[in-house]
């Protein structure tokens, strides 16, 4: 190599290293007298210009600052492509309407940034890293699938971005002591035990087969159902796991069929659930009931199973009371996207609520600084989302507990009759 080039290369590499090690959030310049701005109670935003340096310096995660003309972004990580894309598309569309309805915060508009996380842990971490390094993201309405959420929570924890998930139901998510994760979806503890009770008491199933896809969500749910079903007095005759992403599960289903279960509980998503439902007849499980979860509900399941899907169960959030706001949303969604909310996934209204709740909380903590920029103190926002009390949304009224659970509902069960989802017998 040319003698001249070597030192140039070394200098370039050193420059890249130094650039990469620059701190993400620039600390606010020290100023004069500071008030002890408590980060505990959310401050009511005042229109009089407050000193941003004071509040931001005392906030452990700093402030997100927005110059006039920029948008305040709410992020969302959802499966937008692949076999479960209908969930991501449906929920992000509900959230888009919420963000438009939220108006503006002191003149700054909101924007939804929905990114594809494929519904798995790798995608969730990738999207979380992307959001964490984007200073204009103040909160995340997500993620949507539990596996992606579990991978994303530690990343948001480090930078102080609060989460409000409309659909991540895995119970373990609120047991990690995370300060940023909250959810308005019911937990799988409730979903699983309700499903087991329903199977044993209402459907009179004595022998149950558990099949799951190995994900946090699927396996977690199957375990809870199995435990509760055994406690109720039933017998779990076989438990098998499938590999997601494949198209042929006849071998696993044949092994399951050899134990002659009365019903097959599937913990997983529509992509695999539809295939299993389709292949149950040819593997000797034609007499068994297919019992899915909130991840197998939707129009996609109906189109992919056709006649094979008759009599398949799934669970959804309990129907919330009708209101003027809900009717307005239903009309707006139908007009904008051509489908009624709740057909692609059960979480359309929850998606609206998550984004709307986050926007309203941002409005309570954001303030305009003396320099004309909008400031959102991050720790105050995290605490404010955790302290959500009596928030009336389209899918229910939510009050967050100290661990981030904002919803203690049990699910409602639906069944496929004549090619459509109808409420199942009580």
């Amino acid at each position, binding site marked *: 190599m040319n003698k001249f080039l070597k030192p140039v290369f070394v200098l370039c590499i050193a420059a890249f290293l130094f650039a990469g090690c620059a701190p993400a959030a620039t600390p606010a310049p020290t100023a004069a007298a500071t008030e002890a701005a408590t980060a505990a109670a959310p401050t009511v935003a005042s229109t009089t210009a407050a000193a941003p340096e004071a509040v931001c310096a005392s906030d452990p995660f700093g402030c997100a600052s927005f110059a006039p003309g920029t948008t305040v972004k709410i992020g969302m990580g959802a499966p*937008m*492509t*692949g*076999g479960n*894309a209908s969930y991501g598309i449906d929920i992000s569309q509900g959230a888009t309407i919420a963000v438009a309805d939220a108006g503006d915060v002191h003149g700054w508009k909101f924007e939804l940034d929905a990114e594809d996380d494929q519904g798995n842990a790798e995608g969730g971490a990738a999207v979380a890293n992307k959001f964490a390094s984007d200073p204009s993201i103040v909160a995340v309405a997500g993620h949507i699938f539990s596996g992606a959420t579990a991978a994303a929570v530690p990343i948001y924890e480090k930078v102080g971005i609060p989460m409000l998930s409309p659909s991540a139901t895995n119970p373990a998510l609120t047991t990690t002591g995370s300060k940023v994760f909250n959810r308005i979806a019911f937990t799988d503890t409730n979903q699983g035990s309700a499903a087991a009770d329903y199977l044993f008491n209402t459907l009179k199933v004595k022998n149950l087969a558990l099949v799951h896809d*190995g994900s946090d969500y699927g396996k977690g749910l199957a375990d809870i159902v199995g435990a509760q079903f055994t406690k109720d007095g039933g017998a779990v005759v076989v438990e*098998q*796991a*499938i*590999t997601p*992403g*494949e*198209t*042929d599960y*006849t*071998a*696993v289903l*044949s*092994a399951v*069929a*050899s134990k002659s279960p009365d019903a097959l509980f599937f913990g997983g998503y529509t*992509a695999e659930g539809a*295939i299993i439902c*389709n*292949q149950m*007849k*040819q*593997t*000797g499980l*034609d007499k068994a009931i297919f019992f899915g979860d909130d991840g197998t509900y939707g129009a*996609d399941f109906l*189109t*992919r199973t056709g006649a*094979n899907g008759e009599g398949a169960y799934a669970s959804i959030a309990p129907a919330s009371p009708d209101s003027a706001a809900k009717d307005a949303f239903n009309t707006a969604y139908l007009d904008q996207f051509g489908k009624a909310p709740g057909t692609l996934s059960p979480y359309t209204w929850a998606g609206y609520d998550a984004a709307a709740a986050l926007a309203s909380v941002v409005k309570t903590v954001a303030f305009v600084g003396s320099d004309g920029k909008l400031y959102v103190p991050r720790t105050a926002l995290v605490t404010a989302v955790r302290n959500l009390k009596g928030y009336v949304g389209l899918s229910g009224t939510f009050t967050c507990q100290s661990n981030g659970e904002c919803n203690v509902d049990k699910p409602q069960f639906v069944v496929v009759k004549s090619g459509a989802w109808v409420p199942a017998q009580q």
Partner: protein
Amino acid sequence: MTADTSSDLRRKSRQLIKLIRPLLGGIVGLFLVYRLYIVLIVEHPYGPDTWTRLLIAGLILGGVYSLVAIGYTLVYGILFMINFAHGEVMMIGAFSGYFVFEALNAIKIQDSNFLNTYAYFSVLIAFIVGMTVSALTGYFLEKIAYRPLRKAPRLVPLISAIGASIFLQNAVELLFSPQLRNYTNPTFLTRGAGWTININHSNVIIPYTGVFSFVLSAVLLIILYTIVRKTRLGRAMRAVALDKKTAALMGVDVDSTISKTFILSGALAGAAGVMWGIHNGLVYYYTGFIPGIKAFTAAVLGGIGNLPGAMLGGMFLGIVESMGPAALGIDFQLKDVLAFVILIVVLIFKPSGLLGESLAEEKV
């Protein structure tokens, strides 16, 4: 003194390494026999109806893998190049078949539609269109991504193949949206329907689509084998595989032969794609990825470059994946682990694969 000890050491280490193979084989073999004994003699977890179902599932899966592996192994046999974009060519064929079936389903004739009135003809059209589109894709793939790199070291076309695979996946995703497409089969080929036999008071179904894919892969293998062994094109292909320069000196048009190889491989991938759609139903831009990998594994297992080897490798892989976990009493989630462990063990003992020889009967 030192020279003696070092050569002594080398001799001893070589003797030791010679022992590792039979030792490893012995351990794995003993473990497999032990597990088989526990499952088959001691435990009896499954009845004959379940074993039949598992066997049928294995044969069908094997048929599907063989179908994709045949095209894979052809390209390697002629050009010694692993065409990683083969799965994507197959996916494009599957998409073409989907659009043909959708179009024919929409043409109304009396109280039915074209698809069901002329069912056999519709299936034939779908296959022809699928194979043509895939063949064209294969031709352009070779022309754009591989021909300019013919003089480059062997790894460079491999990377180009991976790039082509990613390009094709994303092109299809952008052109046709990432949503899953559901194949509309003609009624005589409804997915899940089949002949029923009663074993042990239980109905075992042999699916129509499964038998179709098995028969199709066998037929295509025979046709391809005949082409390679009996026709002028086949002779040219074997000559190019043996020695490109000498073949050119003997009057073989090397460029044209290689293009024709890719066209043939593309047509096979197209047939595999349409068959995949008919049998499995759901296609989207990523459908080709897993079959591509499985076909590569099957081809290597059977002896890459060897045409009957691809069929054997595919059947072997299908049966191991379906019956293996049941026969060994392990979790079905570990089927891929089992398949790849067996692949490694086979390669340790026979690095050229089960059937070993290459297409031109010459190893480069």
